[in-house]
């Protein structure tokens, strides 16, 4: 009995020990639990939230592009994206039948997507809102119709190469759409929905929305009336002259605002991937098709360079006057050619222009006169003017892919090269570069930056950002500029550019006819650069006709284009009191 009591005494104390040992361990675990649930709580809550929430983005409405009159050039229309959530579909066959019927898709195509085990599967995007509404009205389980925005261009082909278009995610692909992407795109919003492990939304948990911020509206200097008319003229010219391409640039030489930029043939912005003239896309390889599209989208006004020919004499004249190498009253004699070193360079008038002063030489567009002036200036001085006028740099226009000037290196320029440069041959510049440089010369000597964008305004109109562009004042002196305006007005009034004259207006300008390389191919580029009023230029236009058939002289076919343009837009601009602020 005693022994048994002993036995029990230590077994009791040991049971108590066991209990306290357990209590100790449980306290430790409670401490661990407290650590996890108090100090680590934030970390694990965040992790769990990331795991439980599915993020769906809400597209932001892209900013519109609005012309100088407030007309909308690029807009958004509501389209729908139809998708299915596999785990929520209750009537698979019906879903397949309805979707293939309403969306015009094959049953197999829809079936593949409906039966695919994924959290959300897109069936079709860019569905008309009306179709989307019909599908929504079926109220099918597991079918989601999300509204979305699609870019829409009300004027189809108008200014297509300048405006550009957007891709599947509403991102800019070319033109202003890509340059001003940051302003136009806005900020996508998000819908955070809580889902279970399979992606099934938990309705009772609600959803968290971050509203999207619409993109800013882009106000551009482009004037739809001028653009339309210029486009019409360009098309007409292209057809009557059977030309390859016709470009027309209209800008304000005072501040660089571009009023119209036409490069026909243009393309349909609402169907930018459709090849021109019924070309069958399937007939070409992927690579070839992309090449054709790139050609179609190419903006000849800024992406391509050409030999400017006689319009470039404006630059030579300005350099000559500015450097003092020539004065308007200097006299020259043109026998129909000029010898430069051992080379005989012909004037376009075979018999020669005879005796003429510099103003008359310009009116006649006499090559020997300009070669003489060029040689008088000399390579180094000519080159420094070239740089001073901004010809060696890009213009900085707010469009992508501007081509640079293709010019000889200074050390490679001999007298012959200098002679050809003087009348606009043996190098290449872009049309926008020529128009900009000419603007700078006639506007009093200010190098302006050509541009479209005027301001970007937030969707609610509360925040407006006005763009400013660099201006350089040292191109030529005011005196030289004034002389140039006078000389160029004479060119139109009585010289080679008389077809550019507009009754009742003072117009200045210069014609050009250049043969494209290789010489002797019979391909020409006819062009005319005009501005008005000649004493205080408010508008400058450059028309370039590529490979016209029949008559190819700039003075005969390009000058009338600008004349017709001016006849219409000059009264319009006056009435609009355009840019007279």
């Amino acid at each position, binding site marked *: 009995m005693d*022994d*048994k009591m002993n*036995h*029990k005494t*230590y*077994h*009791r104390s*040991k*049971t*108590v*020990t*066991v*209990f306290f040992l*357990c*209590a100790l*361990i*449980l306290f430790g*675990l*409670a401490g*661990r*639990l*407290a650590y*996890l*649930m*108090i100090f*680590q*709580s934030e*970390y*694990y*809550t965040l*992790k*769990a*939230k990331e*795991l*439980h929430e599915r993020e769906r983005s809400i597209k932001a409405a892209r900013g519109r592009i609005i012309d100088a009159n407030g007309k909308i050039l690029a807009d958004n229309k509501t389209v729908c994206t139809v998708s299915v959530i596999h785990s929520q579909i209750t009537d698979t066959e019906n879903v397949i039948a309805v979707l293939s019927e309403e969306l015009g898709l094959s049953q197999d195509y829809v079936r593949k997507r409906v039966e695919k085990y994924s959290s959300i599967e897109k069936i079709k995007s860019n569905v008309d809102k009306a179709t989307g509404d019909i599908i929504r009205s079926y109220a099918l389980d597991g079918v989601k119709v999300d509204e979305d925005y699609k870019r829409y261009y009300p004027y189809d082909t108008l200014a297509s190469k300048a405006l550009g278009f957007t891709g599947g995610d509403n991102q800019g692909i070319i033109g202003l759409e890509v340059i001003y992407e940051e302003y136009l795109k806005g900020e996508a919003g998000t819908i955070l929905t*809580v889902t*279970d*492990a*399979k992606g099934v939304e*938990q309705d009772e*948990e609600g959803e968290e929305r971050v509203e999207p911020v619409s993109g800013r509206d882009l106000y551009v200097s482009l004037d739809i009336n001028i653009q339309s008319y210029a486009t019409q003229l360009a098309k007409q010219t292209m057809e009557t002259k059977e030309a390859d391409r016709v470009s027309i640039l209209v800008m304000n030489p005072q501040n660089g605002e571009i009023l119209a930029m036409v490069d026909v043939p243009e393309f349909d912005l609402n169907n930018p991937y459709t090849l021109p003239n019924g070309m069958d896309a399937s007939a070409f390889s992927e690579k070839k098709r992309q090449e054709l599209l790139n050609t179609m989208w190419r903006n000849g006004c800024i992406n391509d360079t050409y030999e400017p020919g006689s319009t470039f004499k404006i630059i030579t004249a300005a350099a000559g006057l500015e450097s003092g190498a020539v004065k308007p009253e200097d006299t020259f004699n043109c026998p129909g050619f000029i010898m430069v070193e051992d080379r005989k360079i012909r004037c376009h008038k075979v018999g020669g222009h005879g005796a003429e002063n510099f103003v008359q030489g310009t009116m006649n567009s006499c090559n020997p006169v300009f070669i003489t002036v060029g040689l008088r200036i000399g390579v180094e001085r000519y080159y420094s003017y070239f740089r001073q006028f901004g010809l060696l740099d890009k213009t900085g226009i707010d469009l992508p892919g501007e081509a640079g000037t293709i010019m000889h290196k200074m050390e490679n320029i001999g007298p012959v090269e200098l002679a050809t440069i003087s009348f606009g041959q043996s190098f290449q510049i872009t049309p926008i570069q020529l128009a900009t440089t000419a603007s700078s010369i006639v506007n009093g000597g200010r190098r302006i930056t050509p541009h479209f964008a005027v301001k970007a305004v937030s969707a609610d109109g509360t925040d407006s950002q006005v763009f400013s562009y660099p201006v350089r004042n040292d191109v030529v002196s005011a005196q030289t500029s004034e002389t140039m305006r006078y000389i160029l007005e004479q060119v139109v009034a009585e010289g080679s550019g008389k077809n550019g004259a507009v009754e009742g207006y003072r117009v200045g300008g210069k014609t050009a006819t250049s043969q494209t390389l290789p010489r002797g191919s019979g391909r020409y580029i006819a062009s005319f650069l005009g501005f008005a009023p000649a004493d205080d230029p408010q508008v400058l236009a450059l028309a370039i006709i590529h490979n016209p058939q029949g008559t190819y002289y700039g003075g005969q076919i390009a000058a009338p284009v600008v004349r017709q343009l001016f006849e219409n837009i000059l009264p319009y601009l006056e009435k609009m009191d355009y840019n007279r602020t």
Partner: protein
Amino acid sequence: MAQRNASRRGQKRGESFMDYSLLFIVLFLVGFGMVMVFSSSSYEANIKLGDSTRYLRQQLFASILGLVAMMVVANIPYHFWERFAVPAYISSVVLILLIIPFGHSSGGATRWLYIGPISLQVAEVAKLGMILFLSSLICTLGKGIRTNKGFMLVLLSPAPVAAMIYFITNNLSSAIIVMGIVVLMLFVSCPDYKRFFLLGLIVLAVAAVLVFYVVQTAEAHMDDLDFRGARILAWLDPEAYSDDRAFQTIQALYAIGSGGVLGKGLGQSMQKRGFLPEAQNDMIFSIICEELGLFGGIAVIVMFLLLIWRLMIIANNAPDLYGALLVVGVLGHIAVQVILNIAVVTNTIPNTGISLPFISYGGSSVMFLLIEIGLTLSVAKGIHLKDL
């Protein structure tokens, strides 16, 4: 003190003393377990089986069966079981061996025997079997347990059963629990501490060497590591293995951590919605923490502590050594399982499948635990008889 209080209460209630405190704690845990099994399983059960109450009904059925068995056992004087020591051992062995030809698999492990409509997890039977067997064995040995021979006999005689549980049913956790019960019963029945201190040191050293070995091996041969070695790596750095080996652990930690102090509210767990697989099983404690917060988690721990305390009181007031040892066995079973479960769920030790007594889903487990409580109640009934 405790002994005297319990005795007095026993006196007042006369012959049919029932330990209502213990009964209340157990009923509370079973009821709370049912609520949590429903909460943690209903969402997935609805999706997978189209029947949100499937697990709840099965648990309810097993619990009722268990409660009936508990009341029956509670009313049988516990000495009745003394004669079943050897049969208990033999039937444990036989049941485990029956797994080889007749076992049913679930979740990659073969642990169940089907007897009519009832599935039986044999390891649960073996735990009860070992408690019955050892209680008798230790009583028979008497003072002999103080000798090294007696000590080793008690320690090693259940080892074959533990080994069979491990190798045949591939259930390391149940093997550990069986050995845990053995060591605790041996500890209580031996007067000295030295050998247990030594035993504890050996276990710790082996564990440390194992962890060290696994970490070393991991650097050299990532692919050669076996399943359990990988679990140790996953334990040390769960975030690095969050996609596979530590998936369950990480999901449990997300549940616990995101519960915070007050929890998301009953039924509001997100992790049970497919993120934490089989949330009603071994990881149910993490769902309790997610829904009921730190307060809920600690309340559950406190309830188990109360249960262990109550078992200690009964063991220390048991009329004789056999009764005391039965209760110590039950105490050991519950304590080891609670501690290991919470330690696993909080990633305090490497992951091994251990259910939370009375709360986790599992019919065999809750049934045999209730039978063990029945035994305890029977021992408690004897208290006044001795002290009178």
